[in-house]
């Protein structure tokens, strides 16, 4: 771009064709920066929030704990350094098939201990104590269930803590080996191509390149590209609408699909550079409430707000 050509120079067509950088199909945000930013974002959102300030601050405490454990006790490096092919057919580090390392249990215990110190009373403390007194086998079973979307074992109160530990494990696991994306045409992209989990929200980039959309994985915090103006769940594009509260140019919107009757938030980083998919999704709960009234269900779970177990 922007190269000056004097009249004596010849134009190399081949090089012109490759001038624009290809849009990366996968992005992996730096975990350290991500946790710091998420915590800060949650506290900023809490400050101005009329109705969820206490909850957002509490979630910021969980994120701070994730960050601290990540700093003090990162996942040990992998033995072999082979790369992984990501082809959108089979998730190479699938949440269903990977044999979890005991590391996640250590993270889980640490998380419960550190949060107990911060929250010694009330329903939070009761939940933390209950989880701490759970056997290793039961913890593994609860995790298995939660990874398939079944909240009954962990309970909606325990699920965010189990998820926070699993997420910290998977986020490091998928960053251990180089990933080689093989873009395959005609393959569904509704789930994370690396771990197979659903996204928490979609993010439109500030760039460069600006305006490209990525879905942010709720488990391994990877991002995969997904074209704009197409349903991220059923891939149809005929009955899409974009909803926002009060401002048509809002940075937080949600994309609804009249074909599958679901919606997923779409967060415009190019309108607010401080967007974090998890924090901003959580803080815009009012939008979810209004979308439910319009007949649309979320096609994503926020890692810090699980539904009641029996809910379908």
């Amino acid at each position, binding site marked *: 771009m922007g190269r000056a050509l004097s009249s004596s120079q010849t134009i190399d067509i081949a090089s012109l064709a490759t001038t624009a950088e290809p*849009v990366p199909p996968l992005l992996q945000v730096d975990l350290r920066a991500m946790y710091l930013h998420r915590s800060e974002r949650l506290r900023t959102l809490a400050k101005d929030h009329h109705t969820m300030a206490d909850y957002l601050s509490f979630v910021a405490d969980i994120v701070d704990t994730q960050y601290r454990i990540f700093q003090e006790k990162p996942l040990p490096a992998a033995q072999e350094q082979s790369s992984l092919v990501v082809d959108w057919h089979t998730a190479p580090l699938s949440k269903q098939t990977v044999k979890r390392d005991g590391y996640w249990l250590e993270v889980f215990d640490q998380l419960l201990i550190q949060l107990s110190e911060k929250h010694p009373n009330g329903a939070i403390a009761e939940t933390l104590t209950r989880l701490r007194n759970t056997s290793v086998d039961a913890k593994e079973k609860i995790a298995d269930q939660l990874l398939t979307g079944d909240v009954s074992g962990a309970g909606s109160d325990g699920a965010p803590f189990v998820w926070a530990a699993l997420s910290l494990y998977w986020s490091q696991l998928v960053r251990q080996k180089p990933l080689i994306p093989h873009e395959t045409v005609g393959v*569904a992209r509704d789930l994370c191509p690396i771990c197979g989990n659903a996204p928490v929200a979609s993010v439109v980039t500030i760039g460069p390149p600006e305006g490209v959309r990525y879905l942010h994985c709720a488990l391994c915090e990877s991002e995969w590209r997904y074209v704009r103006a197409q349903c991220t769940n059923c891939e149809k594009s005929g009955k899409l609408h974009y*909803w926002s509260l009060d401002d048509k140019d809002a940075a937080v919107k949600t994309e609804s699909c009249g074909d599958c009757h679901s919606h997923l938030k779409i967060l415009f980083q190019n309108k607010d550079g401080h967007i974090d998919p998890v924090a901003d999704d959580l803080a815009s709960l009012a939008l979810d409430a*209004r979308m439910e009234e319009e007949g649309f269900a979320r096609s994503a779970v926020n890692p810090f707000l699980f539904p*009641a177990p029996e809910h379908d």
Partner: protein
Amino acid sequence: MQVTRRQFFKICSGGMAGTTLATLGFAPGAALADVRAYKLLRARETRNTCPYCSVGCGLLMYSRSDGAGNVKESIFHIEGDPDHPVSRGALCPKGAGLVDFVHSQDRLRYPEVREAGSKEWKRISWEEALDRIARHIKNDRDANFVERNASGVTVNRYNTTGLFACTATSNEAGYLTLKLARSLGMVSVDHVARI
């Protein structure tokens, strides 16, 4: 066609009972207290192709459609489509000003005719416009059609009228444009998208 693999959730109905927020001792009623205070806005994001030149840059067009039956949808913003394989979100200054073109007061909205010798433009129906164009083409073609050339070889040429077609057409539309022109024997055909 494709079966979804994502689960669907409704978390706010029923006052958020049983959700994390409630079971961890936070007040779910408070979390939803000001939901009605907001105005819910609905818009559409639609793909299109810039009508100006042969590059055919991809567009994303944003229109408001707040659901009320009597409110007409209105485009409020147009930007380059970052997913477009050719233009990748870029637009030239002319393309970047498209939203003003859409809402221009001078935009042609219906067929008009300025009769020979007249200074006034007069609104006519689509039917009349098409009939009159067809009549002109027929008269011109009947008068000037070249069935054979000087050597007596059949050529079936219609040289006195050409066709210039617009961009923002697909391959199929381009194919039909060419078919129409050639079926009349038209030789001079050009297209903004260079069919």
